[in-house]
């Protein structure tokens, strides 16, 4: 039973890490701010989500699992706000030019 949980954790966390790698690659390689934002927000939302789901089987108690989920939701909220703010700044800069 525990080995099954371990396999789930390894697979999901590895997938999450791969998404983060892809996001970082996009951040470095994409040509403009908006597409870079697109790349990194995918990694943020999905990658962190996969890592959190992967860690859930390892949580010692339900409270620990809920804390992990809270971390994911809070990171989502702040990431969404930050990308909105950045995108708006880009938009304003284009309109002003």
């Amino acid at each position, binding site marked *: 039973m525990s080995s099954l949980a371990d396999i789930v954790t390894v697979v999901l966390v590895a997938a999450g890490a791969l998404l983060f790698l892809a996001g970082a690659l996009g951040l470095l390689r994409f040509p403009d701010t908006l597409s870079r934002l697109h790349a990194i927000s995918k990694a943020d939302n999905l990658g962190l989500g996969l890592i959190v789901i992967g860690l859930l089987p390892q949580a010692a108690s339900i409270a620990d699992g809920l804390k992990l989920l*809270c971390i994911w939701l*809070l990171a989502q*909220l*702040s990431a*969404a*706000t930050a990308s*909105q*703010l950045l995108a*708006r700044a880009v938009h304003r800069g284009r309109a002003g030019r």
Partner: protein
Amino acid sequence: MMLLFDLALVASLLALAVHVVVEPDERSGIIAFLAFGLLLGLVWARLAAPDVALTEIAIGGGGTGVLLLRAEAAIRGRGKHEEPMTRTSKLAAAMGCAAISVGLGFAVLSFASPAPTLAPTAVEALPATGLGNPVTAVLLAYRALDTLLEKIVVLLALIGVWSLAPDALWGGAPEVRPSAVPDPLAYLARVLPPFGVVIGVYMFWVGADAPGGTFQAGTVLAAMWLLVMMGGLRPPPETAALPLRLALAGGPVLFLAIAFLGFAFADGFLAYPKALAKPLIVAIEAALTVSVAAALAMLVAGPARKAPS
């Protein structure tokens, strides 16, 4: 495997630090410093110091980062620059700094073995304080004097910042809100603080037995207050306002009062009566958390910008 991770961590830290020094664009350097603070938090986790990791990420990276970014935006293009150094003097400075690093490195490698440690002593006295987290016990019981003086240093820094306001504005409110508040920021300022306050209180409460404590909790609360002020939901308080001054002074005053009561009811200054140690420490921590939150938020907000009403 872990060694590989540690080496990657150290390499990124050093690369970011060098980037801060050589990057011509000041803002890019500050953003690198933000990333530096986060990675440093990971290093503290690797050093088995979760309390320090929380403090570093909250205050060292986050708080200082906000401070520096705001400063960069405020003085962009108007900052004072000195004459760049000549090549030779730059080289001499680099050699001197490298010598200091090498010397310190040798010191790190030649630490006494076996390492001296106070951990057993700290744990031995732990039951008397009623606490479970030895770091909190050091901060608020064994070395409480350090923490008291540190709080006073924070207040002195705040007095220093406030005294930079022009005479006519003394006692007025600082300016935190940007000229136009973007909608997403206002939304975040409405949604996040309820969670943030719960998390802050939780960090304060578990600090007695688990990683966390006054400074980390105070920083989270300060961040929430700053967010509300930046989102334009509440104006910053006037620096002369009585509630603000009471919140700022409350922590150190309670701390000092309990410290002096130690003469009457325990062994001396800053000693707690055995039976009451835990409740007294929690009371001091609660008052200190409010003071730390108010002081850190006001330090970021800066001196008064509006005339007092």
